């Protein structure tokens, strides 16, 4: 299992992690596909997560989710974590998890690693918090 602060964009379905859903955005329809962007977080970082099809209905803010074989990658310029076709989401609890809202891994500019062009490294922080879901203080 990986902590959210350690996830790196990659075209691979290999992220196993646990997080709590902080907030859900509006569900949108694109053709046959239902999508919903959410802010999720663990004790180390937050990230934008894309819920897909019936996942949009089943998960609520406050739910603690276990993600297996997730993928963290760009979709139309936005960096998001999602289960993808091969991944799996499972609600394992609710409420009882601490979280931080900064850093937000989706609000970081990543550049290819000069030493290993297949890998990304952090270039700079675009915003300490999500620019889509404002922190509630």
């Amino acid at each position, binding site marked *: 299992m990986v902590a959210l602060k350690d996830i790196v964009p990659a075209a691979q379905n290999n992220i196993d992690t646990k997080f709590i859903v*902080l907030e859900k955005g509006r569900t949108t329809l694109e053709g046959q596909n239902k999508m919903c962007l959410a802010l999720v977080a663990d004790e180390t970082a937050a990230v934008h997560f894309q819920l897909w099809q019936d996942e949009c209905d*089943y998960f609520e*803010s*406050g739910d603690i989710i276990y993600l297996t074989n997730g993928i963290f990658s760009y979709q139309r310029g936005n960096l998001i974590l999602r289960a993808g076709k091969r991944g799996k989401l*499972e*609600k*394992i609890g*609710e409420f009882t998890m*601490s979280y931080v809202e900064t850093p937000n891994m989706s609000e970081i500019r990543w550049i290819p690693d000069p030493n290993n062009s297949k890998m990304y490294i952090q270039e700079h922080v675009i915003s300490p918090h999500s620019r889509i879901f404002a922190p509630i*203080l």
Partner: protein
Amino acid sequence: MVPKLTLTPPHEAENQIELSLRQSFESLQPSLKPPFSLTIPNPDEYAHLNRAILHAILTEPQFAKIHVKHLHALVTDGYAFFTNLLLKIVHHLYPKLTGSVKNQLLWITDEVVRVSAIGYDALLVFLMRQIVGGDFSDGNLWLCTKLLTLLLDKWDCLLEEAPHVLCSALYVFLRVLADHCRLNVEKLESLKRLEVHFCVKIVREEFHLCLKIGRDFIRLLQDLVHVPEFKSIWKDLMLNPSRFNTLGFEGVSQIYCTRTSSRYALLRITPEMETQLRFLLTHVKLGHQKRHFMWFARKFLSEIDKETVIVDIVRFICCAHHPPNEIIQSDVVPRWAVIGWLLTSCRRKNYVEANVKLALFYDWLFFDERVDNIMNIEPAILLMVHSVPKYVDMTNTLLEFLLLLVDNYDMERKDIIVKGVSSAFRLLVSKGVIHSLDVLTSCPALSPPLKERLSRLLSCGKLGSSKGFMPALSGEYIASSAHISRPLSYKFNCITRSARETNGVISAKVMYQTILPSYNTNFPNHGLS
């Protein structure tokens, strides 16, 4: 397809307890039919069989009697393992169980009590905790009825073997009844009658059990004085304590002076709520609590009727959740802040707010250093003191309520209350919970009459007697606080009594009034933003 115990939605992980029962059931299903094996199982097999049989009982009502026979033939541990499994199911899964499984659960509970299984008392108490305060759904009312029927049915056995179960049940049903009496709905009538019958039976026939509960028994009873049966109980408590035929019981002050064990406070909080509250008070940092507060309120307080549970939550926080020093000194959300937030959450019903404040101050009224715990009174003082800088309305409201209680809660026993409250203040200072009471007595934002009253209370406490205590007339007090810029209307629901002693005979006039002041303050974002 093996039937399920719970209604697990898609995308939700199966609970470990359910999984283990189901796996045992699946692997042993063929051996759950007669003829049963005569070989003596080893400990692992024994546990395995217990799990399988329990799953079968819960999911196959048509064969339940056969499965129970199997269980009786098999048991070698006084049903301890089996009952322990039931405890786990009730504690962790009850709200999610299907209707049919709940039905079977209550059926097997009856059986477990009948055979006096080891741990049946805990099982009954765990089930009582699943009754949700302020929840008028059919499922919740069904559970009340089932448990009451069972308790009345097994009365003699419980009285002899497990009287503490009856004490717990009295606490639970007095509290639940107060909720049920506030709603006039046809479907509640028979349940209400059953609850009244059960509570009155304990109070009238087994009054010694009420004494075991201690002062919270009075707090709960007082919410029911408008019910005729309880009105007469109340009169006897105040005027004819001998009517209860209980050796050593001399009067209500004896109950006032008995601190209620913290386990009673747990009885009106569901395990799920307890888990979330304890998490809030041990892990969530002050300044980052908003989302957790929102989630908690969405789950437990969203319906207006459920607001009454705030009274129980405050009692739980004061009496049953005492954080260690490491937490107190850390940046975790303190208890007073949660209570402040809860108080501001119950704007909709004045009696809820008054009862919440009473719950917050209840141990102050009868505080005795020798029997009471300073942690029970700590949240109220910290809430008052910490609210001074930004939310002085909160301080005003709370202090006003406390002083009102001193004057009116029980006029006949005012000396006890004066002593309790003043010694509570003194101990909080001497133990360093607050440095000094100047923060209240010299606070420019607090109303002068209030400060004056507080100073008078504190000075009479110092004299160590209530002789020098000059009670302010409540009428005068209300008039003098009129300058506090908010409407005050007092609807008191407490008992005051004027008694006159003539030649050793007490002739008393009992006046029933309801002392529940309702305030209307603007207090939208208490101290937590």
